[in-house]
C-alpha cells in the first residue's frame, strides 16, 4: 500500500467523516438537553438537502433572470445559509409536534413519535415531489488538484473545510455566548435550571433548530459530492450518525464529532482490506466491541442509567 493511496483514502474518509459528524452533532445536542434522541434527525437531514436543492435552483433561476453570473462559491455560501435558516424551522416544528407533548411520557414513546414523523417526512416528500430522483444542480465546477500524486478535488476541500468551520462555530457559540451558557446549564440539569429563569420551551426548540441547521449544511455538502437525491437517503446516513453520536458518548459534542470521523475512517478503510460487501458487517462489529468494553462511549459519563419508564 503506497503512501499516495493511503493519503487518498484519508481524504475520502475525512469527507465521509464530515457528513457523519455534522449529523451526529444534532443528535448529541438534543440528547444533552432533553435526554432524548431525535429520531427524526436523519429525515431532517433529507429535508434540509431538498430545501437546499430548492434554494439552489431558485438562486440559479433568479440570477439567470437578472442576468448576473454569481461566482460558484458565493452561490454555495448563500444556498447553505438560506437552507440552514429554513431547515431550522423544520426542527422547531418537529420539537413542537413530536417531542414537547411527550416530555414527561416514557422516552420510548417519544422515540416512536420521532420515527413516525420521519416516515411522514419521507413519504410526504414522495407525495409532493413524485418518485423520480432529483439532481442537485452543479453549483461549483469540479477542479482536481494533483498534490504529490494525491488527487484532491476542490469539492472535497470545500466539504471538509465547511464542516470543520461549522463545528468550530458551534463550539464558540456554546462556550462563549449567553445562549450557549443557557444550553450548557440546561444539559447539566433540565429540571432545576428552568427554576432559575431559563425556559426549557425556548432552549429545546433552539437546540432542535441548531441541530437541524447543521444537518441541512451536511445535506448540501453531501449533495455536492453525491448529487442524486432520493427521499430515503436520510435513513441509513441518519442511523449511522446516530451510532456515531452514541459512540462519542451521549451529549458530548467533541465526542460526536470525533466518532463521526472515526466512522468515516472505518467505512473507507475496511473495504481496502476486506471485500467491500463486508463493510457494514465489520463496521458494526467494531462498534459492538467498542460498546461492550466501553459502554458509555468515548466521552460519556457513567451517570445514572435509570430509564424513565
Amino acid at each position, binding site marked *: 500500500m503506497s503512501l499516495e493511496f493511503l493519503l487518498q483514502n484519508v481524504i475520502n474518509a475525512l469527507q465521509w467523516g464530515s457528513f457523519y459528524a455534522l449529523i451526529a452533532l444534532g443528535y448529541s445536542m438534543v440528547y444533552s438537553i432533553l435526554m432524548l434522541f431525535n429520531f427524526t434527525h436523519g429525515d431532517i437531514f433529507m429535508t434540509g438537502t431538498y430545501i437546499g436543492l430548492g434554494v439552489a435552483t431558485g438562486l440559479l433561476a433568479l440570477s439567470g433572470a437578472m442576468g448576473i453570473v454569481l461566482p460558484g462559491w458565493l452561490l454555495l455560501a448563500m444556498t447553505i445559509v438560506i437552507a440552514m435558516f429554513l431547515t431550522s424551522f423544520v426542527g422547531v416544528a418537529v420539537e413542537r409536534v413530536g417531542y414537547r*407533548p411527550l416530555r414527561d411520557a416514557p422516552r420510548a414513546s417519544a422515540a416512536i413519535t420521532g420515527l*413516525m414523523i420521519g416516515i411522514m417526512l419521507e413519504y410526504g416528500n414522495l407525495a409532493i415531489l413524485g418518485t423520480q430522483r432529483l439532481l442537485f444542480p452543479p453549483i461549483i465546477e469540479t477542479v482536481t488538484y494533483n498534490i504529490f500524486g494525491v488527487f484532491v478535488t476542490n469539492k472535497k476541500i470545500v466539504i471538509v473545510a465547511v464542516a470543520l468551520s461549522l463545528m468550530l462555530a458551534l463550539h464558540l457559540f456554546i462556550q462563549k455566548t449567553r445562549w450557549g451558557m443557557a444550553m450548557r446549564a440546561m444539559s447539566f440539569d433540565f429540571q432545576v435550571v428552568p427554576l432559575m429563569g431559563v425556559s426549557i420551551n425556548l432552549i429545546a426548540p433552539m437546540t432542535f433548530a441548531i441541530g437541524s441547521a447543521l444537518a441541512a449544511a451536511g445535506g448540501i455538502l453531501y449533495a455536492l459530492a453525491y448529487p442524486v437525491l432520493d427521499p430515503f437517503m436520510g435513513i441509513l446516513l441518519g442511523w449511522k450518525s446516530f451510532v456515531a453520536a452514541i459512540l462519542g458518548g451521549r451529549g458530548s459534542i467533541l465526542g460526536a464529532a470525533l466518532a463521526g470521523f472515526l466512522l468515516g475512517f472505518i467505512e473507507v478503510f475496511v473495504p481496502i482490506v476486506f471485500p467491500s460487501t463486508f463493510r457494514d458487517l465489520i463496521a458494526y462489529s467494531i462498534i459492538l466491541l467498542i460498546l461492550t468494553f466501553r*459502554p*458509555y462511549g468515548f466521552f460519556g459519563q457513567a451517570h445514572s442509567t435509570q430509564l424513565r419508564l
Partner: protein
Amino acid sequence: MRLAALWGWVWRSAAAVPPLGWLIGAFCAAVLELLIGYELAIMLYLPKVPPLFGATLLFQNPLLFPATLLFDLLVYILPVCAVAFGTQRLTDRAAAFLEHRPTWLAALMHLVLMYAILHVWTEASAYRLQVSKLVMIAVMLTLSLNVINGYMGEFSCSHPGFMALGAYAASVFTLVLFTQDRLFGPALLPAALGPFCYPLALFIGGMTAALGALVVAIPSFRTRGDYLAIISLAFMFIVKSAIENIEPVGGPRGMGGQPNWSTLPVVFTAMALCIWIINNFVRSTLGKALNAVRDNETAADAMTINTRRTKMVAFMFGAFWAGVAGGLYAHEVRHVTPGGFGIQMLAEQLAMVYFGGLNSVVGSVVGAVSISMVSEVLKPLGLYKWLVIPLILILVMIFRPTGLIAFRDFDIKRILAPRKAALKRRE
C-alpha cells in the same frame, strides 16, 4: 342522556353473554357466509364476498360501501347477536360447568371453536387466509418484543435480526432435508416425513435466534437504555450483512422454495402456544423479576433478584419466539431476503408494540391485529398510507403515551367465567 342510557343497556346485555356465546355466534355467521355469502353479495350488487368485512373496499370503491355495510349487518352482526343472545342461558350454564373443571379444558374448547371459525372464514378466499396467517405471525412477534421492550423496559431494536436468524435456520433445515434444492442438492429424507419434522425446524429456528440473543444479552449486563439500543441495532445490521455475505444461503438475493408448511392449523397452534407460554411466563416469579429490573435495577438486585440471569432469560426467551415466528414467516411467504429484515420491519414491529400497549398481552394482540388491519385497509391509498399510519400512531402516543391497553393482566380464568355469577359479584 338517552344515548348514554342506550349505550349502557347495550353494554350490559353484551357483558351478560360469555365468550362461548360470542364464539358460537361467530361460527354460525362464518358458516352462513360460506353458504349464502356469494348469492347475497350478488343480490347487493357486490362483485364478490367482501374479503375483510368490506374494509378494503372503503378506499378502493367507496360507492359500494353502503352495500357492504348492509352485507356485514345481514351476514355478521345480526346472526352473531341473534345466536349469542339466544343461547345466552345455555352458554352461561356451560361456562358455569366449565368453571369447576381444569382451566386448560375450557381454554382448549374455546381455542378449538376459534380455530373452527377461522377455518370456515378463510375458506372464502386465499387473500383472507394469507392475511390471517400473517396477522397471527405478527401477534407472535409483537408479544415477544413486548417481553423485552415492555416487561423488561429495554429499547431493543434487534427483533428483525432474531427473526431473520430463525427464518434462515428453519429454512436451511427444511431445504436440506426435505426438498430438491439447487443450493443444497437432493432431499436427504422422504418428503412425507416433512410436515412431522416441521415443529423441529421451527424449534431449531427459535434456538438459533435465542443463541444469537446472547450477543445482545451479555453487553446488557453492563449497560442499559440508549447504549443497549445501539448494540441491538448494530446486531440487527450485523445479522443482515452477515447473511448477505454467506453465499450458500443465497447472499443478498435471498432464499426461496421453502415448502408451504405454514398452514392455518400450524400457525394457529404456534400462536396459541406462544400466547399461553408468554402469558404464563410474565405472570411467573421470573416475569415479575423482569418488571422489578425495569423499575429499578439496583433495588431489584437488593431484593435478591439475579439481574444478569433475568436479563439473559428475557432476551433469549423473546428471541426464541421471534425465531419461531421467523420460521413460520419463511414458510408462508416462501422467499426471504436479508434486505427484508431491516429498518422498515423494525419500525413496523415497534409501532405494533407501542400502539397496542406496553406490559400487556392483550395490548400486543390488539396492536398487532389493528396495525396489520389498518395497513391492509389503507393499501389502496398507496403512498398516502404511510402518511396516515404514522399520524395515527403519533396521536395515540400523544394522548396515551404507553399505548392503548397497557399494564393489564391477561387472566384467562376471569375472561371465561360465567357472566351471571360475575355480574352478581360486581353488584
